[in-house]
């Protein structure tokens, strides 16, 4: 572990730590404001003297948000979509990354480049062709139409990120496993998979966020059955460009951000080591 601190003079370190804390406050401020405004009563939010505290926290905004038709349903839908995307794309990406890193075959490099190029695609532009694909598959107005494209869009990045992890598992380990009589499948799932798991966790964060945040596809593919819609759409109901219900918007935002924060906190340590591993190459 790098030990720069041995060479940092005391006052500098104190200054550094003070700045770190100050910056942390600034960075966290928007989130604090969001949660604060969610709990402020209506009069206090829409006042020209906003205070960074409230002496009368109220659940009014949350009540409005949850009273909004089917908000709970939207939440569950978002969770279902994001969860499915995370699990399915992790599995598929793991298999694909293993294939491209631990095997040599023709087109291997080509495929890798294709996966890289795939990350460049501005996915919003694909909405119309995807609309017809979904229609052909009979998936319009279902969560499937949201899940499938998200899996596809998160795969290239996941595969690229996982390369480092998969590569890091030594060949010797694999040889030893085969000598011991393990089949290829056993090696894959019982040895390789657990070792690559931290990397999977890191990449799953990206898939989760991407699926959780999407609102363009929900807007375009869920037309007549609004019970299948997702959270970002619910949020925009409260946000009208010039007379937004700020309390409702902040309450809905808070509800929408919490699962992601929870997910992040849970995987925080793995995430840092994961990212370090992915770029170590």
């Amino acid at each position, binding site marked *: 572990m790098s030990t720069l601190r041995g060479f940092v003079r005391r006052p500098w370190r104190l200054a550094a730590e003070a700045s770190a804390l100050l910056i942390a406050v600034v960075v966290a401020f928007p989130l604090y404001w969001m949660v604060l405004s969610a709990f402020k009563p209506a009069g206090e939010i829409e006042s*020209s003297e906003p205070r960074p505290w409230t002496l009368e926290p109220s659940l009014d905004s949350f009540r409005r948000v949850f009273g909004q038709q089917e908000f709970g349903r939207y939440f569950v839908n978002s969770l279902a979509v994001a969860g499915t995307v995370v699990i399915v794309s992790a599995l598929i990406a793991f298999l694909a990354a293993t294939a491209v890193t631990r095997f040599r075959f023709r087109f291997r490099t080509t495929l890798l480049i294709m996966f890289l190029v795939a990350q460049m695609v501005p996915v919003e532009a694909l909405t119309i062709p995807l609309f017809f694909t979904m229609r052909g598959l009979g998936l319009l107005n279902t969560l499937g139409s949201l899940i499938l494209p998200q899996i596809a869009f998160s795969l290239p990045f996941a595969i690229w990120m996982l390369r480092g992890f998969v590569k890091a598992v030594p060949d010797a380990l694999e040889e030893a496993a085969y000598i011991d009589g393990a089949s290829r499948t056993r090696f894959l799932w019982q040895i390789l998979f657990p070792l690559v798991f931290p990397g999977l966790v890191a990449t799953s964060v990206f898939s989760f966020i991407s699926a959780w945040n999407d609102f363009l596809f929900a807007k375009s593919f869920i037309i007549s059955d609004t019970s299948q819609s997702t959270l970002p759409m619910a949020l925009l109901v409260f946000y009208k460009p010039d007379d937004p219900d700020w309390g409702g918007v902040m309450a809905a935002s808070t509800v929408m951000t919490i699962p992601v924060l929870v997910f992040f906190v849970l995987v925080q340590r793995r995430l840092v080591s994961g990212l370090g591993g992915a770029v170590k190459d």
Partner: protein
Amino acid sequence: MRTRTTWTPWLYLAPALVVLGGLLVYPIYQLGLISFFQYTQAQVSGGEPTTFKGFGNYAELFSDSQFWQVLLSTALFAGACVVSTLAVGCALAVLLTRVRALPRLVLMLAALGAWATPAVTGSTVWLLLFDPDFGPVNRILGLGDHSWTYGRLSAFFLVLLEVVWCSFPFVMVTVYAGIRAVPSEVLEAAALDGASQWRIWRSILTPMLRPILTVVTIQSVIWDFKVFTQIYVMTNGGGIAGQNLVLNVYAYQQAFASSKYSLGSAIGVVMLLMLLAVTLVYLRLLRRQGEEL
């Protein structure tokens, strides 16, 4: 690495290839196809037949001055975002190495919070912060009811703040991990030689962190070039008279608002090609660094 020719890798690749083929490659092919036809709402709902237009849509696009304006705006905006994000992220990464565990944890958690915030949510929160009537920023700076979203530059500035806020954590965490991997002897020696912090960064860390910095820069360029949600929400679909449009939002407006799907597709293709160029640059850099793909 197993060098026996087997079909195992293809078996493993099958699910990925099927999903990507059907949901990425095929739509891209369709995208290109649509851009060569006359494809507006009338065609889509069957009111009129589609007609082959060749490069007609592209000609129309390139002769429209708004397209070039939006292209320039996108390039400048993305550039500014990338530079700011990298600067903030790297600076904070170095800062993280100079502090003890507790402040480091606090800053990390704050950054993760910013990173975790969904784009839609972040956009509305920053809008509230800078709201002319109810926002704390105007109050603190004593600006009365100055509207940040009205002026073209100030609207872009506001969006840039949000984008940097939610993107710097990625840079910070990645670069920090990279610095931690640098052998301490090297840094010890430099510090003993009396090198300043900035000198250490420029002459030692940057070269050693090159692979990481490359990844982080390229990723930032790609993401910031494709920004959609923040612009769409914070400037209400592109700003007054479309002054805050970026390419991705412009394509969407052409396709869905004006129903000129073929024109929107043409813009999508242009974006794709530009990002492809960026990717090729990245690949060249990787190749030159001796990276084994």
